[in-house]
């Protein structure tokens, strides 16, 4: 089946980002298709490349990125939510004349329409919030 996942939590705000990641891995093991992961609200923080937790702690944004790259998952970060929270691509950093960009490779900044489109196209929509 085709699954769309909506991720609203950051590693630091609750457990939902980790739950979503574990669920996504289990979906792929079961042979399902993850048609899109949409990062919204605090979930946009999963797409920053600037997390650097201590060695003995897990780096969730890095783990997400690895899964997304390995399985070529369509990973979309809500552009309005991301700009509001300081997660920006090179293009957006230029457009808004910001001092740096931090969006990880493999993610696309795009509009909320990508979430709604996936919601109705997928066989299952699963929301992960804190």
């Amino acid at each position: 089946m085709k699954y769309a996942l909506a991720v609203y939590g950051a590693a630091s705000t609750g457990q939902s980002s980790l739950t979503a990641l574990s669920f996504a891995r289990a979906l792929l093991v079961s042979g399902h298709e993850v048609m899109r992961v949409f990062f919204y609200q605090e979930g946009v923080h999963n797409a920053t490349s600037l997390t650097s937790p201590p060695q003995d702690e897990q780096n969730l944004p890095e783990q997400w990125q690895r899964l997304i790259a390995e399985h070529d998952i369509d990973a979309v970060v809500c552009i309005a939510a991301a700009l509001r929270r300081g997660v920006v691509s090179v293009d957006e950093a230029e457009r808004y004349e910001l001092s740096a960009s931090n969006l990880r490779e493999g993610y696309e900044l795009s509009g909320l329409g990508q979430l709604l489109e996936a919601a109705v196209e997928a066989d299952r929509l699963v929301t992960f919030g804190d």
Partner: protein
Amino acid sequence: MATLHTVNKTGQPLELCLRALNAGDNVLLLEEGVYALYEASDVLSDLLKHVAVYVLEADVLARGMTNRDNLDIGMVDYQGFVELTEANDKVVSWF
């Protein structure tokens, strides 16, 4: 048209879930929602008359909890979570 409801906290998310259930639905307690095993075991035993209730194993183990022997609550891993989403027509998340 059965629905899987995931509940990630006791309090408001659990209360709202309770009034959104139809007979034959499934409930999965996860994250802080697994504390319902202790805090809301009366509610759960009522609930079990109408719907099947599951807890996510990783979250139960992480918190030093155990399933209630006197309640018929299924323990599932992430693979089991996936199977619950397959078996139901849609998923509603309460958080």
